[in-house]
Structure formats: C-alpha cells, structure tokens
C-alpha cells in the first residue's frame, strides 16, 4: 500500500508522455497553410475525363483577394484534388466544402459515383448542398473571377440556397436528403438548377431526377406544387392567375381603381401559406392514392379590385383556388408518372402498406405506371390583410 503513490507517479508520467507523443506526431494543419475548398463544380470533359473547378478560400494576411479559382482535369474527383494541389501554394482541404455543382451534361448521365465519394470521405459534412448547373459548372465557378475575387462564391452560394430553403422557395438539397431519396426505393431526388446571370448566380428551377439521372426540370411556378406534395409550408407565398370571366362575380364596379385594368387576367397573391398534405394509399390492389392538401393562407395582393367583404365571395375565391390547385397538382402527378419519376415518394407510401414481402426498384417502376390519384385540395383564406 505504501508503494502505490510512487508507482502511480511513474504511470502518470508515461501516460502524459504518450499523450504528448501522440499529439506531436500527427499531421498538423495550421490555418495559414491551408486552402479551404468552399465550393466545387464538375463537368464532363470529353471521354473518360472530368473537369473540376474549385473555389478556394485562403487565409493569407498579406494579400487581400482571399479566394482563388482552380481548374484541373482528371478521372476521379480525388484525382482532381491532386491536380488542384499542384496549382496551389497551400494544402487544399475539403472540410469546409459548402456546395457542389454538377453540370447538366453530367447530371443527365448520372452523378451517383461522384456523390458516393462525398459520402465516403469522413471530412465532408452531411449538409453540403448539391446543385445542378444550367450549363457548365465551371461557368458558375468562374463568377468568382468575374467579381475579381470579392464575391466569396462558396459562402455566396451556400447562403443563396440556404436563404431560399428557409424562405420555402426551394426544396432542401443537402447531401443527406439526396442520399435518403436516392437510396430509398420509392423515391427520387430533386436538386436546384443554378444559372449564371450577369455577374451573379441565380436559382432558375428545380431538376427532377430518376435515380441519379436528371430527366426533367420544373420552373419556379410548378415548384410550389411539388413542395406542397413533398414537404409542408410554414409561410409560403404563391401567385395565381385567373381569367377575368372566372372571377367576374367578384369584381367591384364602383371603386376608385382605373376603369381599364392593366392586365388581361386577374392575378391574386396569397402568402403566409401553411400547408399540410396527406398522401394515402386507399386501394392497395388498384394502387389508388388519395392526396389531401390543406392550405391556410391570406390574400395580400390582387391586380384588380375584388370584393372580399362578404363571406360568400371569400368562399367563392377559395373554391376557385381549390379548382386551380387541384388541376395543377394532378397535372404534376401525371407528369411524374409519365416520366417514371417519383419525387413525391408514392413508392414509400406503397411500401409502408406492403405486408409480407419487399419490393425491388424494378417492381415499383413497373407498378408505378398503373397508379391512379384522387386529389383533394382545401383552401382556407383566413385573412385579407388589414382591409377587406
């Protein structure tokens, strides 16, 4: 018992020494000697070759322009990294990668092998945004150069997508969600499409995938209906157009508006939309789905004076909304069915009711052709702003 303290002291010393040894021997990564890849883009460059463009953030106290765009060619993305490293005075690391862009050409051929390496690499986070370039990815990366390195494209693109995801304009395109939808049998991913506009990069639409191949594209207006189906709105905004005859009943005659309306159609914008969607398999044999959409919203703007004071007229407007939305949702679902893609996750719902057997991807693709829908939309206009 008396000896114990001395023995422990020796142990302590050895312990501490190994700890120091461990800490000293691993590779160090001082920030000034690193180039952080914040965003990178991939293009197909001829046969068996990809072109990678990376925007690198540097921490160099001497220079002001802290970003650099590096382009290189290789067979694999990690090969690209090697090539890129040859063009950099700082070691390139990908721990701060915020978004990855694939060219449309690549996306049409399939991107899963390129996504797989992101999954495999422990250094890359799960919340990296995946996007599709309208034309080439390098074109988007070169925006950094056009802005003379002042834009900080990596952060810019990250905020561009993040802000719009939070504003419920775009469906969240993180690596995790792509994986989830890709590896799920009854579901296909969607990713936003980016476009160059002047010196800026903008979101132009949403690409629809069949497994990992881009097959179609949704414009901003239709995206609303897709988002209704896959997600829910907490504070969305939607602009809807009606023919003048459709709403004739509601038009106020003696109002101080201009006699002749500026537009030939009537547009109504609702905002603060809260939506809730239930997709249910009602008939397992005939594969009949019932889609129930419920929306609560308020009217905020219309291009012609409409009488919204009476309960009956608000109800009338609600009904018009219902009809139009129902039509659009049905159109969208049929379009998905024709393309053989399933961004809504109907297959998931089907699978959840499939007892006693499992379904393969091919089987689902086969039965998906015979799916029928029954869409019900229910709008509630809660408010009409501060005036009637």
């Amino acid at each position, binding site marked *: 018992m008396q000896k*114990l303290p001395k*023995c*422990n002291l020796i*142990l*302590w010393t*050895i*312990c501490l020494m*190994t*700890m120091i*040894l*461990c800490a000293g*021997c*691993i*590779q160090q990564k001082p920030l000034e000697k690193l180039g952080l890849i914040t965003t990178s883009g991939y293009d197909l460059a001829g046969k068996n070759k990809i072109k990678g463009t990376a925007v690198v953030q540097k921490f160099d106290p001497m220079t002001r322009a802290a970003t650099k765009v590096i382009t290189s060619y290789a067979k694999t993305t990690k090969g690209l990294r090697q090539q890129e490293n040859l063009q950099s005075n700082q070691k390139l690391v990908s*721990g*701060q990668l915020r978004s990855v862009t694939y060219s449309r050409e690549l996306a049409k051929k399939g991107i899963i092998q390129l996504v797989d390496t992101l999954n495999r690499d*422990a250094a890359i*986070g*799960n*919340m990296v945004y995946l996007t599709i370039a309208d034309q080439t990815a390098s074109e988007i990366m070169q925006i950094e150069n056009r802005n003379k390195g002042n834009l900080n494209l990596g952060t810019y693109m990250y905020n561009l997508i993040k802000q719009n995801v939070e504003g419920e304009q775009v469906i969240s395109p*993180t690596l*995790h*969600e792509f*994986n*989830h*939808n*890709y*590896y*799920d*049998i009854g*579901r296909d991913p969607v990713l936003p499409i980016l476009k160059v506009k002047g010196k800026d990069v903008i979101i132009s639409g949403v690409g629809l995938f069949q497994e990992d191949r881009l097959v179609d594209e949704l414009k901003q207006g239709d995206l609303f209906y897709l988002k209704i189906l896959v997600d829910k709105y907490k504070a969305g905004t939607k602009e809807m157009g009606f023919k003048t005859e459709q709403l004739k009943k509601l038009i106020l005659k003696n109002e101080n508006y201009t006699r002749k309306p500026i537009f030939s159609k009537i547009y109504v914008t609702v905002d603060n939309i809260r939506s809730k969607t239930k997709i249910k398999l009602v008939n397992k044999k005939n594969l009949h789905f019932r889609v129930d959409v419920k929306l609560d919203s308020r009217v905020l703007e219309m291009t012609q004076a409409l009488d919204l004071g009476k309960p009956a007229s608000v109800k009338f407007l609600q009904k018009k909304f219902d009809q139009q939305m129902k039509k659009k949702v049905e159109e969208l679902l049929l379009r998905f069915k024709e393309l053989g893609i399933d961004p809504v*996750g109907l297959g*998931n*719902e089907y*699978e*959840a*009711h*499939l*007892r*006693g057997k*499992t379904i393969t991807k091919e089987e689902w693709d086969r039965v998906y052709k015979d799916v029928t829908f029954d869409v019900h939309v229910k709008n509630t206009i809660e408010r009409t702003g501060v005036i009637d």
Partner: protein
Amino acid sequence: MKINVQPKEGLLVNAFLVMFFIHSVQTGVGIVGLPRIVYIAAKHDAWISVFLGGLFSAFVLAMIVLMLKKYESADLYGIQVDVFGKWLGNALNVFYMMYMTISFFVILMNYIEIIQVWIFPEMPTWQISLALILLTIYAVNGGIRIIVGVAFMSVLGTLWMVFILVVPMQYADPKNLLPLLNTDLKHIINGVYKTSLSLMGFELLMFLYPYVKDKKKIFMYTQIANLYTTVFFTAVTMVCITFFAENGLARTIWPVLSMFKIVRLPNLERFEFIAVSFWMLVILPNMCAYLWAASKGFNRIINWKQKKGIWIIGILVWGGSFFIKARYQMNELSDFVAHLGFLSAFCYPVLLSMLVLVKKWFLRRKKSSAEAS
C-alpha cells in the same frame, strides 16, 4: 482457492452505483454500429430485435443475480470451481479470462479504427493503443472503486448526447418503420443475436458482486440499468432506421456517427469530432472493467498480485494491436467476438445458474434428509 471473496470494508461500493456500472459497460463501442448490423439482419423491424435483445439480456441478468444470491459473496472464478471442481473449473476460469481479454482488445481496436477513420487518419495504431491502454491500466490500478467511479462519471458525462438525437429526428421519415412486424421471426431472432455484441458487458456483474455493499438491492438496480440501456438502444436504432434510406443504412459502417454529421453548431461545423472524442469517455469504463475482471483471474487462480496480471494483459493487448491493419480483419474479429460473447455472456451464465440452482437444491435436500434421519 476460496470460493467466497471477502473484500475489506473500504473496498465496497454502493448497490446504487452498480446501476451506472452495468449501463456503462453495456454501452460502448457497439452502439455506434449496432443499428446497421441489426438492420442488415432484420430490416426495418430491427428496433424490435434490439428491444427483444434487451429483454433477453434482462432475463440473463436476472438469472445471474439469482445464481449470485445462492452464494454469500462469490465471484465467477469461485463459483466455477465450486460447481465444476478444481481442474475443470480453473480451465473454464482461464477461458473466461481469455474471453474478457479479447473483449477488451476488440473494444480498443474498434475505437482506434473510429479515431483513424473520422479524425486522425495519419495517427499510427500503436500510439493510440499505448495511450489508451496506459490510461486503462492507470485506472484499474486504483482498484474497483475507481472503476465504478469512472463508470459513474462516464454515464453522467455523456448523458447529454442522448439529446443530440433530436437533431436527426427532424430529418426522419417515420414511414420507414411501416409496416410493423413485416420481417419474419427467423430474421428478427437473427437480429436479436446480432445485438449481443452491443449488449455484452453485464456479465461482469459476476465479478463485481463480492464488492457490492448492499447485496439485496442488486436485482432492482441491475434491471433498471438494463432497461435504460434497452430503451436507449431501441431509440437509437429507430432514429437510424427513419433517418437513413433503406439501402443507405446498410451501407453506412457507423450510422450513429454519420447521423451526428448533420449537427451543426454555430462555431463548430463538425460535431462528430466532439462525439468521437467524447466516445472515449463511454468506452473507458468498458475497457477498465474488462481489464480488471480479467486480471483478477491471476489473483484468484494462481494467487499472483493482480497488478502483475494487469501489466501482462496490457502488454498482450498492445502487442495484439500490431496485427490488425484493415477493416475486414476488424470485421472478422468483431464477428468472432460477437459469437463468443453470445455464448459466454448470454448462454453460459444461464446454464451455469441452472447448474448452481440444481446443485444447491440437491445439497439442501440431502442436508434436510440427513437431518430427518
């Protein structure tokens, strides 16, 4: 060898602390990969398998407590000698020591692999294993009270990690769990079997028992500990099944860590760094407990000083760490230990406790008939 161990009053631990001990030796390196392993066996009903596995271990724990209560203050080393005699009993003792040494080794190597994959790819195995083994030896040198203290600290220090599960839950798709009970019984049982590597550890109660102060309360506390482990494991598995896509989970080696990747703190992009580092706190009591119980054998069987045993096992394990290089070797070893663990932690204690019960019943009858005549 004496069957009963009579430790000094100062070495005893509270029965209340046994709860922390059991939970922390059950929760270890296994849980990081558990959801995937069970998912491969039992598909989306994996959580049912994990839950049933927990119930099974509760049953085994109850049997162990029942057996231990038949003795005044014995550990497994003593009981085996009492039941099987000197030679066979000691052979089994040596076997159990080997099993615990290998378990210690597997826990260590699994954790080192995680460190190398997730944080420091360049760090050589021998350095990390040296540091960890020395740390373990240091703790075990302090005796059983220190080990139980480490277990207590580990449970309290990592309790907050449970709440991190809320973040991946936001990305969960509960439909993945439906339809319930769609997997047939064979696969679910297979899943229960696969759970064994992660639930292992409670068998160490058989070595801790003589050191518990209030032996009457032990049944309740061990059951509470096991229940908590079961609920925790089931919840983690459920979240994993809903978080990952069906084919995605089967491909992810450490689903729990991959899940932590989505947690983002304002000034820390990568939460899994913290998770992996904190995991040392989770596995430290495991390593300590296995090392302590295994080295205790030297003291009990050949009457050496336990300290000698600690160093022998430590050096053996450190030497062994040089032989494991690749993922597939690790896989084979883990599978082997899972089989071994299933036999020695689940099946064997049940068998042994039955033998003990029969023996005690037989002796009592003999005694009472002797008294009667």
